[in-house]
């Protein structure tokens, strides 16, 4: 039953992808297909990475309201990119080999993410309010630091940073798509391998440990995967705070199970579906180019408020 629902999502994504590629296709077909294919691949990669990262992060945090973006994971990425531009200069940054740059940024995010969030969030894991506050304050601090760096930059360097930081699916570097796809594939396989252990971890630290789970190490592994997936999504298109919340919540509703083996792929598929459907709707049906990120954030934010209010009323 659950597997069938995940397969439905796979079918829906394939159908939607075909529609995205072939809708009103005119000559020169090869060129247009190549453009649309690049955009489709980036939408699927970002949606899937964000959905999976959010489910993993919610298990680490023991809370289904949180996303890596809410507690400042995206802000950390912004900080790293800004620091990189400031230290290398706009031209130095722009001329870096894109694959090496991507790998360096991902590595830096994994390292600092584990250091900051692994230490602070896991320590506060039993106190939700403290954990959210810690994350939000960290995020504000990192954004503040990034902003401070941006203020002392030359205008040309600032333009390079701005280009990297706003969520847009229009200007994806095709070289990065391959490495992002490989990283997403590896992270997804690793996450699925951890799925049975994550089911136990969702019971809470003490209960999971009393069942013999190496809880702390598992949480660090999951956080490392979150960092890789956030890096994949953010490096390709820029930060999107609430997409993951939408994808994870819908995936849980659709699968109706607590099992990560079903929820993880469903969240990845849901994230991809939201972006592909949204982009198709805005770009092809409404002829709007850049409204998708804004709308996803708007509806994701609404869902966040709804979940907070529902939780409070419970």
């Amino acid at each position: 039953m659950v597997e069938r629902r995940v397969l439905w999502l796979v079918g829906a994504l394939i159908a939607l992808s075909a529609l995205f590629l072939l809708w009103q296709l005119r000559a020169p077909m090869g060129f247009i297909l190549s453009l649309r294919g690049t955009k489709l691949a980036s939408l699927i990669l970002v949606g899937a990475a964000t959905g999976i990262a959010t489910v993993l992060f919610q298990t680490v945090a023991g809370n289904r309201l949180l996303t890596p973006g809410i507690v400042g994971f995206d802000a950390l990425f912004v900080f790293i990119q800004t620091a990189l531009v400031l230290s290398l200069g706009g031209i130095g940054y722009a001329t870096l080999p894109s694959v090496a740059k991507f790998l360096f940024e991902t590595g830096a995010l994994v390292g600092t993410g584990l250091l900051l969030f692994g230490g602070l969030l896991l320590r506060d894991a039993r106190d939700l309010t403290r954990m959210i506050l810690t994350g939000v304050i960290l995020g504000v601090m990192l954004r503040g630091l990034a902003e401070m760096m941006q203020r002392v930059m030359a205008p040309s360097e600032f333009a390079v940073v701005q280009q990297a930081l706003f969520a847009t699916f229009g200007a994806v570097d095709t070289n990065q798509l391959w490495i992002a796809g490989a990283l997403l594939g590896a992270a997804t396989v690793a996450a699925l391998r951890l799925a049975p252990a994550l089911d136990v971890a969702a019971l809470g630290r003490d209960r999971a440990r009393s069942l013999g789970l190496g809880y702390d190490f598992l949480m660090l592994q999951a956080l490392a995967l979150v960092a890789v997936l956030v890096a994949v999504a953010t490096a390709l298109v820029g930060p999107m705070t609430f997409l993951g919340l939408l994808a994870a919540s819908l995936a849980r509703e659709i699968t109706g199970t607590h099992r990560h083996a079903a929820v993880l792929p469903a969240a990845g598929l849901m994230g991809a579906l939201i972006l592909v459907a949204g982009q198709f709707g805005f770009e092809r049906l409404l002829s709007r180019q850049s409204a998708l990120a804004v709308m996803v954030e708007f509806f994701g934010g609404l869902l966040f408020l709804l979940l907070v209010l529902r939780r409070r009323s419970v």
Partner: protein
Amino acid sequence: MIKVEGLSKNAGAVEILKDLTLSIPPGGITALIGPNGAGKSSLLHCIAGLDRPTSGMVRIDGTDPFSCPDRERARHLAFLQQSQPVVPRLTVRDMVAFGRWPHHGGRPRPEDAEATEQALRAFELEDLSERPLEVLSGGQRQRALVAMTYAQATPWLLLDEPLNALDPRHAHDLMRRLNDLSHAADERSVVVVLHDINAAARWADRIIAMKDGRIAAEGLVAEVLTGEVLRDLYDTPFDVLVHGGRPLVVTV
């Protein structure tokens, strides 16, 4: 044999366990009783290897629970804690099946499924097995949690207030089942925190009474459950009657 020597545990500036030394022999039921804040749960957490003591030593059948690999420890000792977070959409069957995790580590075998079914039957949970935990009553949920601990099939069972939220019939059934387990051929040793002194009087083989982080009294049921010991323990007068050959405790 569980051996605890010179065990102390601090929570900030507060000393919650004070230089405890005790032995719990295998087999039978050992009940931990005492007023709120006596340190009973903290002691169980230290024995279960979940909370590292500030000083002192714990050995379970000669093994240090803090240096033993997690899964190996969980195959030897199961621990049911007081409060349990409920995972949305987690069914009773899945919850009970988690008890087999130390044995299969994520790759369940047919014998794990059989052990899960046996635990469901033992705690009369077959009819509830496909229901999510969040729709169950507190007592039904507690039975599912105890069944999970049972499915873990360990020589030692540590249960922290398992009678919470259980009605008299299910509380009686649970204690009877623990009694059967602890006196069966493949005897399991049960250490249980109880606030119901009469349940301890009825079912325990030994009692350890704790107060202010120290052992106030320990021994056989008749040795510990005296009016004098209980008055000092709870700062309340008690009458100890005899019913069916066992002490029956009533507050005065």
